[in-house]
């Protein structure tokens, strides 16, 4: 009996032993080379909102590395329509859908070897064209999505939602850096992702993602949330307010 029990123990130990050993091998020391921090992880869109900046501070422990930072706004499906004339009127005739396009996109990097190796921008989605890769949903009769994509980028640029880039990261010393991204007034609300990359020897060796919330606050947030979460009540209150203000105007109206 004891033999059997000890055998089972032995089996259990032998089964567990390599797993434990492997786990120890795999966990790297939790000392990351790159760490970034947002000055604010929350941007308030008030009724006087006139744009804001996303401030990013960073530190790298190894000065012989390169750093890249990408800011991506909330992603949505976007349809790009090309107008053509029908009976003289310019109407939306041909459309191409782009899946999960970030409604804000900006990037920055420390130059260096980031662009020496073409794989890095593609891998990281660094650069507008690289970010847009594979987003177009081709239809059978469309042969060329590139002019649609160019139009999309041009429109977003014009609205300052894809700011012209990249701007160089500003290093305070060899290790500390800061960078900032301008959010225009029409910036979409939602969760923004700040992706950071550490590049060494032509390879991305570390990557991290921080989140930033851009949302309406105060009265705006209240109106937005009630309109989306309790639409019938919002509608009812809106119409009551309208009727009441109409009534009020009717009372004070100058009568001819």
């Amino acid at each position, binding site marked *: 009996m004891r033999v059997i029990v000890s055998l089972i123990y032995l089996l259990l130990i032998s089964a567990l032993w390599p797993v434990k050993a492997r786990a120890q091998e795999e966990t790297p020391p939790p000392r990351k080379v790159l760490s970034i921090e947002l000055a604010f992880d929350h941007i308030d*869109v008030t009724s006087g909102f006139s744009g804001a900046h996303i401030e990013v501070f960073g530190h790298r422990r190894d000065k012989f590395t390169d750093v890249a930072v990408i800011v991506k706004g909330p992603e949505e499906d976007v349809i790009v329509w090309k107008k053509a004339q029908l009976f003289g009127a310019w109407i939306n005739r041909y459309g191409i859908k782009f899946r999960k396009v970030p409604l804000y996109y900006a990037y920055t990097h420390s130059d260096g070897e980031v662009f020496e190796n073409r794989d890095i921008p593609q891998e990281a989605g660094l650069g507008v064209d690289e970010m847009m890769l594979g987003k177009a949903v081709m239809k059978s009769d469309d042969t060329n999505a590139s002019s649609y994509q160019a139009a999309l980028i041009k429109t977003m640029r014009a609205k300052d939602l894809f700011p012209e880039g990249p701007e160089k990261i500003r290093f305070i010393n060899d290790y500390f850096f800061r960078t900032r991204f301008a959010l225009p007034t029409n910036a979409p609300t939602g969760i923004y992702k700040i992706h950071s990359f550490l590049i060494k020897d032509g390879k991305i060796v570390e990557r991290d993602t921080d989140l930033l919330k851009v949302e309406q606050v105060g009265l705006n947030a209240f109106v937005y949330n009630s309109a989306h979460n309790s639409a019938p009540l919002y509608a009812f209150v809106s119409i009551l307010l309208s009727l009441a203000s109409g009534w009020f105007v009717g009372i004070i109206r100058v009568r001819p």
Partner: protein
Amino acid sequence: MQIYLPIAEMSVPIESIVALGAFVGFVSGVFGVGGGFLTTPLLIFMGIPAPIAVGTQSCQLAAAGTSGMMGYWRRGNVDFLIGSVMLAGGIIGSIVGIFFFRLFQYIGQIDLVISLLYITLLGSIGLMMLFESFFSIMKKKTVKSEFNRLKSPSLIARLPYKMRFARSKLYVSVFVPAGIGFISGFLVTTMGVGGGFLLVPAMIYILGMPTLLVAGTSLFQIIFTSAFAAVMHASVNQTVDIILAAWLIAGGVVGVQLGILVSRRVTGARARVLLALLVLGVCLQLAVQLFVQPSNIFEIVVK
């Protein structure tokens, strides 16, 4: 000063929104028209998305309708019975309008549809007003106060479900007022206009209502039809921006007062020429946007 609109999710100069409301209010004060046909296109020119312009406009219509109707109500010039029958039609029209709106939103052509509806409507009304006021100036005649009523066409007379409307002294099929209401409901939801310019002639010539009761009754109907339309837009499309509506209404209050003061000093026909030119100007601007090759032939729509 910029103000952020929570539903449109964009910043607009508050001055121009208030000025727009005041201007439209002024026009409606001078001419006694609703002015919705000006607000929606002007909002679109300002860059507000067309669906939000139309959806928000339904709130504004309910407000303007209420203040307009109160005067008629005090004088007892509202036929609530026939107005309610019209309202029933208006609600069905709103529901059909919302589906129509959704359909064209879905296939990406709602802006085109709104433009085309407006060009047709503003063009025909503007021209009619221009000719009418032009001829009345030429002939130095005042507009006839008595209208020659069309004899009810036999088709209308033969429609079933006749009902007696004591206040209007009418015995007519419920389908006639309900049909007129239906058109109004459809216009409110798809274009953000009350449709008084269509309703009033239809009520006089087709329905044969006493002219004294027409304005108040059509306003009564428009208030509740646009209230219903606002509820539909807000719950189905989330396109009612109450902040935008509030500033428009605030501007409108001031504008209407000024308009009423001015209206005592302007002569009818000449002023109507101005209104006709204004309407045609907006129509022309919409037509230019549609028919002249745009500088950017691409349009981006976020789903």
